[in-house]
């Protein structure tokens, strides 16, 4: 049975809203956690402002355990924890939890990579000026890395749209859910096409905004 497009549009709009909600909430939480972990990864590196071998090794091992797990498997594997923390495993908000965990570690690596690419001379100059490790982290490292960092976060956002579609298939709602239920399971190509077009538009819009924002901060 094909969908009746005269009544189906509100369903599409609702699903788009769910996808955007999942992506934005995840982005907010995961950026917060990811930036902290990424900073820790960087500053505890050998020779850095808060060098700490134990923290550095622990974080790296943790990230390297979580990161290689395919998201769809991670989503299912972590569901008992999702139930404990979110109270349920079904729905848009429940999906935000596993997405946040997975995205945090990805963001942590993006943050670390961008910090590593800062000229060490700039950090040395800050030390020579008498800046404390915290003044260096918040006054130098973050502002210096912000431009490329925003591009990195944009890259992650596009990945999150992908994640959200997967989360949709296990009860998260959103465009992925719609596309799977109507487009795949009910062979309604028109739903598939519409959702794919909307997903492409979302990706384009986020990339555009990301580029715009990063250009405002990128100073080279």
């Amino acid at each position, binding site marked *: 049975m094909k969908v009746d497009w005269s009544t189906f549009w509100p369903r599409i709009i609702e699903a788009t809203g769910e996808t955007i909600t999942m992506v934005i909430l995840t982005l907010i939480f995961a950026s917060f956690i990811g930036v902290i972990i990424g900073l820790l990864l960087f500053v505890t590196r050998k020779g850095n402002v808060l060098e700490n071998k134990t923290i550095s090794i622990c974080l790296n091992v943790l990230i390297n355990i979580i990161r290689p797990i395919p998201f769809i498997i991670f989503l299912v594997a972590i569901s008992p924890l999702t139930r404990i923390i979110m109270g349920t495993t079904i729905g848009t908000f429940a999906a935000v939890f596993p997405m946040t965990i997975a995205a945090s570690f990805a963001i942590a690596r993006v943050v670390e990579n961008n910090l590593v690419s800062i000229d060490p001379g700039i950090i*040395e100059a800050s*030390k*020579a000026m*008498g*800046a404390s490790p915290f003044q260096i982290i918040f*006054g130098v490292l973050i502002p210096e890395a912000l*431009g490329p960092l925003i591009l990195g976060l944009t890259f992650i956002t596009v990945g999150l749209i992908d994640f959200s579609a997967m989360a949709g298939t296990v009860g998260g709602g959103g465009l992925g859910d719609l596309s799977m239920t109507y487009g795949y399971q009910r062979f309604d190509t028109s739903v598939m096409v519409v959702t794919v077009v909307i997903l492409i538009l979302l990706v384009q819009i986020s990339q555009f905004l990301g580029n715009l924002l990063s250009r405002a901060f990128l100073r*080279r």
Partner: protein
Amino acid sequence: MIKLENVSKTFEYKGKKVAAVKDVSLQINKGDIFGIIGFSGAGKSTLVRLVNLLEKPTSGEITVSDHRLNSISSKQLRHLRRKIGMIFQSFNLFNSRTVFGNVAYPLKLENRPKEEINRRVTELLRFVGLEDKADKYPEQLSGGQKQRVGIARALATSPDILLCDEATSALDPETTGEILNLLKRVNEEYNITILLITHEMNVIRSICNRVAVMENGRVIEEGEVYKVFSDPQENTTKNFISTVLNDRLSTQLIEKLKKKHPSKFYRIIFSGEATSKPILSEITSKHHIKFNIIYGSINELQNQLFGNLIVEFIGDEQVVGEVLSELKIVLDVKEVELA
């Protein structure tokens, strides 16, 4: 002002120990522009970083403005560092901050009031000649302008000492001259002691009053610039000096000249008082012999003239001997040997 006593620094790299600075003792006095010259790898970069403890010494004692660095807490160190400005070969400006923001940063670290920061930054930008560039970002500046920002930033907290790590090595000769003039003004107008490292003898000759020559982690020669230039002891020092004074002929050229001129060549060094008197012509005419200047140069060093001539004397050998011994009383005379 800055005192290093038997300071050594050894790095451990992949289990191997590399001694960058070996048993260096130096004293830099207030008001000095002290230059350390050496080839790359001589240890001078490490040495300058020991002064503000960007590198910790392996052994030895460092005293800066009456603070013994061996027993300093990290908080005291941060305060001391605000009294030691530093500029770098690659400028190390904050790309995310404007020129104004760069110069203001050290003041913000001290939580100075906004009006004071504005006043101080404006004053410094005027001093370095960049008042019209306050809102520009470093990427929009030339190398020389970037180093001016670096200098203004280093001066923000009114330091007593300025460390210069190859500050002009990335600049063209003209810009180098401008930056050196600026450093000279920093020294004279703000009475800031400058410790600079370089591999260019020209930098030492232009602004330093004292110099130390480093080789393989050691200071091999040290003293007043005029004295070191006019009477260098070590081969490395002589090599550095010849890069700016043209005081030496190639051996091929000497060979060639010797074929044309049968008599011996003598190197005569004029320094201090001797440069203002016609000593050479007085003594030779007294003994009725002639002299011929083969090669030479007269340079200005620390507002004094410094001459370096290679001369042949034409006349009876015995008379030439008398002339030489008379010259040796007031001048430095050496027979030019073929190496």
